[in-house]
C-alpha cells in the first residue's frame, strides 16, 4: 500500500467525522478489552508466562543467526525449500518465481501481515496471477480494494450493511432476493464462494506465527480454518515469514501460545494451531507436493543491537491497538501504514525511515496502556519517544513545535526565571478568567480551546502551595 503516514493528522481529522467508521470502532473498545481481561484473570500464571515469553524472544534475538541456520537445516531435511529475501522486492520476486514454476493462475492466501508488508497481491496481479484472500475479513477488504485496518481484525472498520453491499455487488451469480441481513448469512455466503477457490488454486500462501528451529516447522494460528485449507489443498505451500518469527523449541512455542490468543481475542487457544513440516510424504493421502519458506529481513537485521531491538519480540496479537485511545478514536487506516496502532508507530519508522513516518510516533498520548497489556512486555511508549528524539535531531519536527519546545526548555532550565514568570503569569491569567473561571479561546492555545474550555488558574502555583505546606509541617513539628 502507499505509505501516507505523514498525513496522519489530516487522515485522523477525516476519521473523526466519519459516522460509519465511528460506529464500527465502537466494537473494538467494547469487545477486545473485556475479553482479554477475563482470559488473563482466569490464568494465575499469565504474568509469569509473559515474563518467560519475553525472555525466550530475547534469547532468540541474541542468537538469531544461529537459530536461523538450525531452522534452515531442519526444513531442508524435511524436504522443504528455504529462500532468503533481503528486501520486500526480493521476496516478491521469489514468490512470483515459485508461482510461475507451478504454472499457477490463482493462489489462495491465508491471513498474513507480512504479505501486506511486501505488497504481494499487487505484484501477483500485475503478473497475471490472481490472489484470493480467504480469511473472511481479508476477503471483504479485498473486494473493496482496501487494506487491513487492524492486524488481527482486518475489516473491523466496517459495518455489516457495508459487507452486505459488497457481497451483492460482487456475488452476482447468486439470487438477488436472498436475505443477507444477519452476519451469519454473510459468513455462510463467503464460505460457499471460497470453497470453490481452494480447490481451484494451484498455490497456497500463508504467513507464520512461529518458525521452530528444533523441528523446521512453521506454525499458523487461526480461528476460521481458511489458512489450513489454503495450505492443504494447493499443490504448493509457500510460507512467507520474517526472520524474527523463530523460536527454539516446541516447549518455547507453547509458552508464547499461552499468551498469544489470550492477549489477542481473549481465547485460551485459537481454534486451529497448525504445525507444518515439509511437503507431503510418501504415505500421505493429502498435503502439498512442495513446501517453500521465504525468510524476509526487510530492515529487521538493522534493528538488532539498537534501542528498537525489543520491537522484534512482537507476536502481532493486536492488544496494543485494542487498548489504544488514539486507535479507538481514528481507526487503523488513519495511520497510513501497513501496521497501525502503537506497534506500527514503532515498527513503521524502523522499516520505512523516520522521514516518511514521523507523525506516527507522535500519534500517542503516552498513556502506557499498550505496554501494560503487551504479552511480550515491549516498552512501546519508550521506543516512540526514541523516535521523537530521532525526528527532533534530524530537524523533522515542525518549526512551531521546535520553537515552542526551545522556549519552554529555556525557562525550564532556569528555575528562578521560570518561577518569576509563573508568579506574574498565573495571577494575570486568573484575573482574565472572569466570573466563568474558564477561557473559550486563548492566543497560542487554539488547538485546545477549539474543542474544550481551559480552566482559569485558581490561587497559588504548585510550587507556592508546596512551599507553604512544607512550612506548615515544620511549624507543626516544632
Amino acid at each position, binding site marked *: 500500500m502507499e505509505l501516507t503516514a505523514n498525513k496522519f493528522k489530516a487522515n485522523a481529522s477525516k476519521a473523526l467525522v466519519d459516522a460509519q467508521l465511528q460506529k464500527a470502532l465502537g466494537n473494538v473498545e467494547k469487545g477486545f478489552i473485556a475479553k482479554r481481561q477475563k482470559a488473563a484473570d482466569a490464568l494465575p500464571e499469565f504474568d509469569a508466562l509473559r515474563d518467560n515469553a519475553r525472555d525466550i524472544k530475547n534469547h532468540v534475538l541474541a542468537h538469531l543467526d544461529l537459530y536461523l541456520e538450525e531452522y534452515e537445516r*531442519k526444513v531442508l531435511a524435511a524436504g522443504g525449500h528455504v529462500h532468503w529475501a533481503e528486501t520486500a522486492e526480493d521476496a516478491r520476486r521469489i514468490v512470483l518465481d515459485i508461482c510461475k514454476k507451478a504454472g499457477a493462475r490463482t493462489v489462495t492466501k491465508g491471513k498474513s501481515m507480512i504479505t501486506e508488508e511486501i505488497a504481494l497481491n499487487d505484484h501477483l496481479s500485475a503478473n497475471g496471477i490472481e490472489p484470493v484472500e480467504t480469511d473472511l475479513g481479508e476477503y471483504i477488504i479485498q473486494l473493496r480494494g482496501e487494506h487491513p485496518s487492524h492486524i488481527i481484525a482486518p475489516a473491523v472498520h466496517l459495518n455489516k450493511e457495508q459487507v452486505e453491499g459488497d457481497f451483492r455487488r460482487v456475488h452476482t451469480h447468486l439470487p438477488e432476493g436472498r436475505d443477507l441481513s444477519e452476519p451469519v448469512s454473510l459468513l455462510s455466503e463467503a464460505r460457499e464462494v471460497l470453497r470453490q477457490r481452494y480447490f481451484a488454486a494451484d498455490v497456497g500462501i500463508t504467513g507464520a506465527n512461529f518458525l521452530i528451529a528444533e523441528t523446521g516447522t512453521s506454525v499458523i494460528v487461526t480461528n476460521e480454518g481458511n489458512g489450513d485449507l489454503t495450505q492443504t489443498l494447493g499443490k504448493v505451500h509457500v510460507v512467507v515469514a520474517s526472520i524474527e518469527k523463530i523460536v527454539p523449541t516446541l516447549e518455547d512455542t507453547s509458552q508464547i501460545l499461552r499468551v498469544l490468543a489470550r492477549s489477542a481475542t481473549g481465547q485460551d*487457544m485459537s481454534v486451529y494451531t497448525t504445525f507444518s513440516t515439509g511437503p507431503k510424504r510418501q504415505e*500421505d493421502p493429502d498435503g502439498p507436493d512442495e513446501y517453500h519458506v521465504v525468510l524476509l529481513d526487510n530492515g529487521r537485521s538493522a534493528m538488532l543491537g539498537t534501542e528498537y531491538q525489543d520491537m522484534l519480540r512482537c507476536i502481532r496479537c493486536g492488544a496494543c491497538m485494542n487498548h489504544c485511545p488514539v486507535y479507538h478514536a481514528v481507526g487503523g487506516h488513519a495511520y497510513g501504514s501497513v501496521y497501525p496502532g502503537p506497534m506500527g508507530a514503532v515498527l513503521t519508522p524502523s522499516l520505512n525511515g523516520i522521514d516518511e513516518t514521523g507523525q506516527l510516533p507522535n500519534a500517542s498520548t503516552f498513556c502506557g496502556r499498550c505496554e501494560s497489556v503487551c504479552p511480550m512486555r515491549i516498552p512501546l511508549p519508550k521506543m516512540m519517544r526514541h523516535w521523537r528524539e530521532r525526528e527532533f535531531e534530524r530537524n523533522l519536527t515542525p518549526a512551531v513545535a521546535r520553537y515552542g519546545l526551545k522556549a519552554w526548555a529555556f525557562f525550564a532550565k532556569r528555575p528562578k526565571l521560570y518561577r518569576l514568570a509563573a508568579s506574574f503569569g498565573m495571577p494575570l491569567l486568573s484575573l482574565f478568567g472572569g466570573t466563568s473561571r474558564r477561557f473559550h479561546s486563548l492566543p497560542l492555545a487554539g488547538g485546545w480551546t477549539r474543542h474544550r474550555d481551559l480552566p482559569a488558574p485558581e490561587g497559588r502555583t504548585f510550587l507556592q502551595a508546596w512551599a507553604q505546606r512544607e512550612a506548615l509541617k515544620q511549624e507543626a513539628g516544632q
Partner: protein
Amino acid sequence: MSARDTVLGKIRASMRVPASDEARRKTVADRLESTPTGVIPARAKLPKAGQVDLFCAMAEQFGATLARVSDYKSVPAEVATYLRARNLPAEIRMGADKRLKKAGWEAEKYLEVRHGASDGGDLAGVSHAMAGIAETGTLALASGQDNPTTINFLPEHHIVVLKAGDIKGDMESVWAMLRKTQGKGEMPRAFNLITGPSRSGDIEQTILLGAHGPRALHVIVVE
C-alpha cells in the same frame, strides 16, 4: 554473496558477533537439546481422572459437543446417533486408523463408510486424535494415511475419537509423546491442535461458528 550470507552477515554485524563463536553455538545447541519447559499452569497438573474431566469441561466450554463411551465397540453407534440427531445422511469419511477400523462399523447396517482423504463432498468426517490437552480442551491430530488432514477441515461435522488414556494435562506432555513416536526434532507433516469448531469474529466482532472449517466438532472419549 548469496542472499543467505547477506542476511546472516547483517544480523552478525548488527549484533557485533563473529560467525564462529563457539560459546554462542554451544548455548543454542544446549537449548535445542535440553528443551526446557518453562511455566506450566497449575490447572494442568491434575491426577489422571481429573485431567479427563477437565478436558471434557474445557472442550464443551469452547463449543465442542462431547460423548463418553466405555469401549471402541460403542463408537459406531454413537456416530450413527449423532448423525441421526442432526438429520444428516448416514455417511462418514474416515482414514485408515486401526483403532477406528477395528470398532466394528458393520454393526451399523445403514452407515456408509468412505475411506481415504476428503474431497470436499463429505458432510461428516471421523478422525482419531493422537492426544487431548486438558488445560484447554484441545485435540491433537497427526497427519498421514490413518487420519488425513483434509478430514479435519473439509466436512461440516468433524467427529473425533480420543482414548481417555491419551488425555494429558498440558501441551508439553504431548511434545513428549511426539518425541517418542516420531523421534526428537521430528514432526508429522501436519500436526493440528484443534480447540472447538471453526469460527469468525470478522463481521462487527460478533463470534459466529462455522467459518471455513467444520461448523460442529463432536468428541467421543473412549474410557
